[in-house]
C-alpha cells in the first residue's frame, strides 16, 4: 500500500449523487406527510395505505442502492440480499390475513 501514502494531494469530493439521493428521500417523506394530512382517511383508507407502502419501498430502494452501494455490487451479492427479503413479503401477507381470522375467532368466543 506504499503507493497511497505518497499521494498527499486532495482528490475532489464526489458528492453529487449523495445529495441528489438526499433530496429524493426528503421529498418522498414530505409527500408522505402531505398525503397523511390531505387525503380523507375515512374514504380512502386503503388507497393511503397502498401509497405509503409503495413510497416506503421507493425510499428503501434509494437507501440500499445508493447509500449502501448495493446497486454497484455484483449480481450474486444483490440477489443474496434481495431474494430472502422477497420471502419475508410472503410471510407478512400470510400472517396479516391470519391475524384477521384470529380476530374473528375472538369476536365469536368472547
Amino acid at each position, binding site marked *: *500500500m506504499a503507493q*497511497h*501514502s505518497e*499521494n498527499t494531494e*486532495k*482528490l475532489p*469530493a*464526489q*458528492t453529487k449523487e*449523495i*445529495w441528489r*439521493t*438526499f433530496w429524493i*428521500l*426528503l421529498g418522498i*417523506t414530505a409527500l*408522505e*406527510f402531505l398525503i*397523511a*394530512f390531505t387525503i380523507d*382517511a*375515512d374514504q380512502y383508507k386503503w388507497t*393511503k*395505505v397502498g401509497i*405509503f*407502502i409503495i*413510497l*416506503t419501498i421507493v*425510499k*428503501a430502494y434509494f*437507501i*440500499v442502492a*445508493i*447509500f*449502501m452501494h448495493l446497486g454497484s*455490487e*455484483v449480481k*450474486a*451479492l444483490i440477489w*443474496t*440480499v434481495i431474494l*430472502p*427479503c422477497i420471502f*419475508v413479503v410472503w*410471510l*407478512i401477507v400470510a*400472517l*396479516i*390475513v*391470519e*391475524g*384477521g381470522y*384470529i*380476530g374473528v375467532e*375472538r*369476536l365469536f368466543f368472547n
Partner: protein
Amino acid sequence: MASANTSTTAEHLIWKGGVQPMKVGYGKLMMWIFLLSDTFTFSALLISYGLVRYSFPTFEGLRKNFEFSTTWWPIPERVFEAVPFLHGISAPLVFVGIMTFILIMSSVTMVLAVEAGHRRDKADVEKYMLWTILGGFAFLSSQAWEWGHFIHGTEEGLTLANGAKVFGANLVQNQYGPPAFADFFFFITGFHGTHVFSGVVLNILIFYNTANGVYEKRGHYDMIEKVGLYWHFVDLVWVFVFTFFYLV
C-alpha cells in the same frame, strides 16, 4: 493465484484463499450477511405487529369522532401528536417527522464520510463522522422524550368500563388502546433504539481510530464503509417502522 493478485483488486480485499467471492472484501460480505439476519429479526417484530393489529377490531366511526379505547386499535396519529415545548398543542406526526429527518440527515453525513474515506481524506472523514455521531445522539434523545411522553400519557387519561382511570402506557396497561399496542411500541422502537445506540458506539470507535490515524496507517478506510452499512441499515429499519407504526 498469481492472476488474481495482478488484477486491479486492492490487496486487503483479497480473501486468504487468494480469491475474492462476490467481488467484496470478507468483512463487507459478512456485514451484509449479518444485516440480512437482522432484517429477519426486525421483520419478525413488524410481522407480529401486523398479525396482532389485524386481530383487533378497528374503530368503526368517522375519524373525527375517534376515541381511545382498550377494545379497538388506536389511530397512531392520534397517539403521537405531542412535540417538545409545545404543550397542549396537537401536532400529529410532526415530532416523528423531525426524528425521521434527523436519521436521514445522519445517514447522508455517514455516506459522505464513506466517500471521504475512499479519497483517504482524514480531515473530511473526521468532520462527517462527528456530524453522524451528533445525529445519532439527537435521534436517541428525541426517542427518549417520546418514550417519556408515551409512558406518562395525557392529563385526561382514559376511563375504563369499571370506572378506573389509566394514565399513559406500560407493558400491562395502556391509555391509548389495547396493551399489546404499547408492548409493540416499546419492543419495536426499543429494539431499533438499541441498534441506534450500538451504531453510535461503533461510530465513536471508528472516529477515535480515524483521529488516531489507525486507518491512515492501515492504508484504507474500509472500516468506515462497514460501519456505514450498519448505520444505513438502522436508517432503513426506521423508514419501515415509520410507515408501519406511525403512518398506516
